[in-house]
């Protein structure tokens, strides 16, 4: 089965700073999804990457997919308090989504 490992597990960043979260897969990635979860709440879809080398941006969040490395990264530029939460990567080799371990992001003023 496919395993997704995220790093770091938690991240504390000063407001305004940039940060990167990584997601590494144990198997070939045919698509990679990024979700954000606020504590005790649902998952908010951020982005889907389908092709190797693909890069997508939404507001201050950019995600890239490196198929060869079986890895994806999520980069936040000029972080804001609204970026705080748990970021999850997910892969869907079949019907189901398999999720990573999550990265808890805290933004300090």
């Amino acid at each position, binding site marked *: 089965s496919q395993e997704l490992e995220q790093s770091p597990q938690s991240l504390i960043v000063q407001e305004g700073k940039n940060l990167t979260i990584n997601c590494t897969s144990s198997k070939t990635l045919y698509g990679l999804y990024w979700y954000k979860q606020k504590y005790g709440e*649902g998952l908010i879809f951020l982005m889907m990457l389908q092709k190797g080398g693909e890069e997508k941006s939404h507001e201050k969040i950019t995600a890239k997919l490196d198929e060869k490395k079986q890895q994806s990264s999520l980069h936040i530029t000029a972080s804001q308090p609204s970026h705080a939460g748990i970021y999850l990567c997910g892969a869907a080799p079949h019907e189901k989504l398999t999720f990573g371990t999550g990265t808890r992001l805290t933004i300090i003023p």
Partner: protein
Amino acid sequence: EPEVTQTPSHQVTQMGQEVILRCVPISNHLYFYWYRQILGQKVEFLVSFYNNEISEKSEIFDDQFSVERPDGSNFTLKIRSTKLEDSAMYFCASSDRGARGQFFGPGTRLTVL
């Protein structure tokens, strides 16, 4: 913007009781899913449902679990005889294109005492 809704937001039950968790998927979606997240752990897949039948289920989804789409709008997860270890956040998701592009509901927090 259309969204997946779930009720109740929090359910407390006694061990051995039956619970039904309800979901209203996005209206034009055809693929439906249940996931769960035990506190502090990963989000885990339970079951997928398409064309009025289960298309895939995980090892977690044993005989005490069942899903149903009783009408054109609701999608339910029934747990027949709850155990303490069933305490978790249960998420419903729906999609118009299979596993890709799933939208999640806010979750139901199930507490089994």
